[in-house]
């Protein structure tokens, strides 16, 4: 499977985790989108350094070819999925802890 296909599926997977699996529903929270907007800028920077130096080289067969600040656009999809999954887990664990401590 190409990076394009995997990157798109990773977004699908992260959305399923957030909305159905953990039900953290971060995708409906303003705080999430504002955080993501802040991270987006830094994401471009980090991806740009990684591919601009280049520390990582992509095979042209695996990507669409569209690039933003040196990095293939697929990197943005993968980054979004990683961020959403992590924050979804973080919020779920914190929610569980809050529930446990308020029950006692």
């Amino acid at each position: 499977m190409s990076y394009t296909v995997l990157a798109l599926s990773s977004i699908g997977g992260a959305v399923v985790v957030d909305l159905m699996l953990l039900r953290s529903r971060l995708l409906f929270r303003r705080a999430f989108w504002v955080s993501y907007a802040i991270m987006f800028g830094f994401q471009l920077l980090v991806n740009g350094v990684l591919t601009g130096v280049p520390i990582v080289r992509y095979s042209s067969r695996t990507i669409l070819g569209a690039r933003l600040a040196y990095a293939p656009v697929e990197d943005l999809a993968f980054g979004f999925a990683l961020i959403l999954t992590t924050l979804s887990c973080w919020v779920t664990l914190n929610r569980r802890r809050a529930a446990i401590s308020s029950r006692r």
Partner: protein
Amino acid sequence: MRHLSYLALLAACLLGTAPLELWLGVRVYRRWRLLLLSLLPGGLVGIGWDSYAVYAGQWHFDYRYLLGIRLARLPLEEWLFFLVIPTCAVLTLEAVRRCRPDWMIGDEPADGDETADGDEPAEADRPLAAKRWRLR
């Protein structure tokens, strides 16, 4: 020096976000067990995918910019990436929460728990048994 490039990039990410913990007081590193647990699912999938991609020739790393330590086809720095970047994400979310406490995230403590940011239950109210369950 060139072989420290990737490591320096990751260090810059940690240094850049350190003020959020130190001065804004987001208390993310203080909840390090919760943090590590949160990083685990994304990290495992990410490492698996990454390792597959290198195997499949989708991308490769230029070892002139790396320490040269390799685990499961991936440079050590790439493993650290999956610790550092998601940590920065958690720090950012908590910083936004800190600046905009009225924007609910969904893990706020239930009514009656007056602790400000939900991560410091009042010790006096809590029976000893409850402490076992606290993941902080």
